[in-house]
């Protein structure tokens, strides 16, 4: 007798179900196998029905040892692989790998995320990278990934995250998790260190406001602006970034009233309505500060050209994104002549600087040229500071990382583009640079030495955090106003 129809269909479905289950179990086994490879002492992997498994309690103190060596130091690295800054993912991870490569580690592949081999072992404790986190510039995802790296994969130290709101959320997370130490990746919201003040969160890079030090002064005194507009993303980093420009421009005598501050949402793709807003006040202002970052920079400039016409580069200054190699590469001629600022000095002739740039290109041929990116640089600074502190304490993470953190707070980095030290809130003090983009690349014109987060008392834990209307526009005392160190005369660059 023949059997047909749905009975067979039912059997087919059962087989597919069995197949899916087998695949899922294999995937889980692979996932857990990844852990076991580097950490053979971990408890049984989660390959059986999840409800019955005992996940390794990896957050406990690493008491066990392997092969006579010290217990591994578990490190997680968090960046964005999706969202506005997803394009920087490999660059970030590559930056974090550089100090380890300098200490003898070797890349496992052409891409940084392929991993490292032969990692350094400060004090006999080999560093083990437990995983790379992949967020998407939302705090939600950043926290999810932080939890995965720390709570699931057992990271004791994490480097990251990338973006402003993520940084605030992760700093808050750090506060609730005193057992881990987190070094900021490259996020630059002011609140992260100034307000949250988590004792186990360290930031070896400037915040968004520091990154604009010198730019307001430059716009007022070199470009001759008196009234300006600002267009910047509607989230914490961009608030901080605009705050740096606004505070300084107003401090030296300029005007940026609230109605000249435009805030398109992060991840906006159509900037035409915002460009139209800008066009309305175009004749009334002497220039505009661009704080739209990441993937938004190019569509914004295009929208402005369509609405306003060809843009006079002397009527525009931008924050760090408008000098970053990743973005400049895509902006092309459009950005030539625009002044921007950050803590990078890629045209420095200092041997440290050239060595950094050359080593990078040699290490990551696929990512050549990106050593001039703050993203690579800041992840590098964080990893370098971590290694120096670990070396100083012989890899000792006992007593809740007490010695390690003390060492970390005292690290003074002799970094490629200038010295980096920390203030009392574990926030970097670092040089800042104003440069002009030319067809040959950025030419640095000004250096503002050792910029601190508080802008000479303009920002404190008590002042309202930067937002759409803060800071207000008023003349203030600024420690560096009129005191920039001239690297190349701006007239020379603009004239040529």
């Amino acid at each position, binding site marked *: *007798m*023949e*059997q*047909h*129809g*749905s*009975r*067979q269909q039912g059997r087919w479905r059962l087989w597919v179900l069995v197949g899916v289950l087998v695949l899922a179990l294999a995937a889980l086994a692979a996932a857990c196998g990844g852990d076991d490879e580097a950490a053979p002492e971990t408890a049984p992997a989660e390959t059986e029905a999840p409800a019955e498994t005992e996940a390794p309690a990896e957050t406990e103190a690493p008491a066990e040892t392997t092969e006579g060596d010290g217990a591994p130091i578990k490190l997680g690295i968090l960046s964005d692989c999706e969202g506005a800054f997803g394009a920087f993912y490999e660059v970030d991870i590559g930056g974090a790998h550089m100090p380890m490569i300098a200490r003898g580690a070797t890349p496992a592949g052409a891409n940084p995320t392929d991993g490292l081999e032969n990692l350094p072992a400060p004090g006999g404790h080999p560093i083990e990278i437990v995983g790379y986190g992949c967020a998407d510039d939302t705090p939600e995802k950043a926290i999810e990934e932080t939890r995965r790296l720390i709570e699931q994969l057992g990271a004791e130290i994490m480097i990251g995250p990338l973006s402003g709101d993520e940084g605030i959320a992760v700093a808050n997370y750090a506060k609730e998790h005193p057992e881990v130490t987190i070094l900021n990746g490259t996020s630059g919201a002011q609140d992260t260190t100034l307000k949250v003040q988590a004792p186990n969160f360290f930031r070896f890079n400037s915040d968004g406001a520091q990154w604009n030090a010198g730019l307001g002064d430059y716009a007022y005194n070199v470009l001759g602006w008196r009234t300006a507009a600002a267009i910047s993303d509607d989230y914490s980093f961009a608030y901080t970034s605009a705050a740096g420009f606004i505070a300084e421009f107003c401090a030296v005598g300029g005007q940026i009233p609230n109605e000249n501050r435009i805030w398109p949402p992060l991840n906006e793709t159509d900037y035409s309505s915002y460009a139209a807003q800008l066009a309305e006040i175009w004749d009334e202002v002497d220039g505009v500060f661009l704080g739209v970052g990441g993937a938004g920079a190019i569509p914004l400039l295009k929208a402005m050209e369509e609405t306003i016409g060809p843009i006079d580069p002397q009527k525009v200054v931008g924050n760090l994104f408008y000098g970053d190699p990743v973005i400049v590469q895509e902006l092309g001629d459009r950005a030539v002549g625009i002044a921007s600022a950050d803590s990078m000095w890629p045209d420095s002739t200092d041997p440290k600087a050239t060595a950094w740039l050359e080593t990078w290109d040699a290490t990551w041929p696929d990512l050549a040229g990106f050593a001039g990116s703050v993203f690579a640089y800041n992840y590098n600074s964080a990893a370098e500071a971590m290694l120096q502190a670990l070396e100083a304490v012989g890899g000792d993470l006992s007593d809740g990382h007490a010695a390690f953190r003390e060492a970390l707070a005292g690290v003074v980095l002799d970094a490629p583009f200038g010295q980096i030290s920390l203030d009392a809130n574990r926030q970097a003090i670092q040089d800042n640079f104003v440069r002009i983009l030319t067809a040959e690349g950025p030419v640095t014109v000004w250096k503002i030495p050792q910029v601190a987060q508080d802008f000479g008392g303009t920002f404190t834990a008590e002042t309202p955090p930067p937002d759409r209307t803060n800071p207000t526009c008023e003349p203030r005392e600024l420690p560096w106003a009129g005191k920039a160190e001239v690297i190349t005369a701006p007239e020379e660059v603009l004239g040529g």
Partner: protein
Amino acid sequence: MSVAEPVLAIKGLDAYYGRAHVLQRVELEVGSEPVAVIGRNGMGKTSLCKAIVGMSPPAVKGSIRFEGKELLGRASYRIAGAGIGYVPQGRRLFPSLTVDEHLRMIGSGNGSARWTIDAVYELFPRLAERKGNRGMQLSGGEQQMLAIGRALLTNPKLLVMDEPSEGLAPTIVEGMIETLAALVAEGMNLLLIEQNIGVATSVADRQLVMINGRIEAETTAAELVASEELQQQYLGVMRIER
């Protein structure tokens, strides 16, 4: 296909809906002579249709051969392609398509085939009047006509009709009986499921009686019409006195 061999041969057909054993070892043959399957509601008549056209109940076994080829296990669109036209009970139209679109979806306006769109409009002039109306704007009877027309357009060798007279006005039913008689005369093979004995006996001489999922008896139209007793026995008919 030899003359002796029937177009449709069903052997040992069993079908289940969950716990219900809705078809039980059904044996049935359809040749050039039209066949009517009669019986009360819930006896398995519709399940039989669905099994033939591949809209199977969850579980079917046995054998359904059409022109010698096994149908069981084939997808319903392939069965339709093999030459079985189906008029389902309750019409099953597309609410948003017009009458004309329903028909154009299946067949062309001309050609050498017996059934063209024009031929369908000729059969049901009412449909021609309603060409531009959508499925849901048709009255119940018009929907039934459209369902029949749609089945004819595939130019089937075998037409399976599940209660085509339901919801049709008496005049239309009369017209339909004439149409079916004409189709049979042209050589169409016909399997008719009906509760309306008048229709069943007017179209087919062979009457199969389905009771509780089995073909329980076979009789002829003349016998059935003549015998009140048989009607009572097979269909539970009784006269109403008022």
